[in-house]
């Protein structure tokens, strides 16, 4: 019986490839919160985020044999999620032309907040929804998920200079939008 809580990623991947599908639950539990936060911040909508995240875990399971460095399962599946969020965001943009932020995505965990705090969360959701997707992606990876630029290259396929430019643009645009929302 594998101790999923203490087993490393490589061991859990190995168990799954050896036929123990249940070991995959350990990887889901380990990464769901971090990946879920990224999906919610990127898509601004809890339902879309959970759908993208579930799809990511299923795709990763199906492709697990192609995870060439199982010890870095986290980085590998992050790349899959980044692509899923891009696809879902693009499909939704075509469908709706505009992103409809779900205020609950930011405020759900905020029961008991003051009115000011709630308004601040709404302002952030509003501003994030107005960033260009590539800028939002770079901003969230850098500042929310705390990835290095080298790690960002790995999950996005973009170059370091391009990513730095997007982060800088996103910061200035977000500053402008939040200042506007504050007026």
């Amino acid at each position, binding site marked *: 019986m594998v101790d999923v809580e203490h087993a490393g990623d490589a061991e859990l991947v190995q168990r799954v*490839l050896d036929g123990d*599908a249940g070991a995959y639950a350990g990887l889901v539990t380990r990464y769901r919160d971090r990946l*879920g936060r990224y999906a919610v911040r990127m898509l601004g909508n809890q339902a879309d985020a*959970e759908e993208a995240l579930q799809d990511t875990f299923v795709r990763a399971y199906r492709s697990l044999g192609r995870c060439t460095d199982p010890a870095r399962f986290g980085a590998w599946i992050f790349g899959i999620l980044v692509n899923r969020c891009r696809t879902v965001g693009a499909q939704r943009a075509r469908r709706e032309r505009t992103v409809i932020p779900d205020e609950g995505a930011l405020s759900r965990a905020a029961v008991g907040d003051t009115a000011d705090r709630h308004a*601040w969360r709404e302002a952030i959701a509003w501003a994030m929804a107005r960033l260009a997707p590539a800028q939002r992606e770079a901003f969230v990876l850098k500042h929310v998920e705390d990835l290095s630029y080298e790690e960002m290259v790995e999950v996005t396929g973009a170059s370091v*200079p*391009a990513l730095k*430019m997007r982060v800088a643009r996103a910061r200035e645009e977000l500053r402008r939008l939040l200042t506007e929302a*504050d007026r």
Partner: protein
Amino acid sequence: MRQQRNDPIERAIDTLREPVELRPDFERRVMAAVASLPVPRRAGPLRLVAAWMVTARTVRLSPLGGLAAAAVVLTALLGGRALLGPGAESAPLGAPLAADGRAVQFVVAVPTASTVALVGDFNDWNAEATPMRPVPGDGIWTVLVPLGPGRYRYSFLVNGTEWLTDPTAPRTMEDDFGRPNSVVTVGGT
């Protein structure tokens, strides 16, 4: 522990880093979905090669390689300009020159600005790294930047919020999804 700061960006980051709450049955739904799938198989060498061949990847091609030796961009201005090379050595602002003696003087006319910063590939698009200096009286802002040979994208950031391309330099749309940047090319010796 991160401190709440007055900067709205830092405050936003603090908020965005808070955990999100997924539905309690999330794991169960994922595991139910994978239960109907065949057990994944380890990819052998042939499958890995096949996967590599069909995976989309970014390939960066620069048309400048063969032109680098000759590429010296000298943009003359009236709204703005990037002046390159030995002529910049006598520029009045005294910024250090690159080891090979090359520097680019960036100049832009923005009479109404209270601050202008130069941001680009050479300073990691850091809005605080290269502030431009006003030339008293005529709304001209300038800065001298040492640059090695290469191609650099850049923009001016006016009053911390407004992005302005250099009206006299070539523009590129690459990598910024619809927002243009200017381009300066510094040739090799």
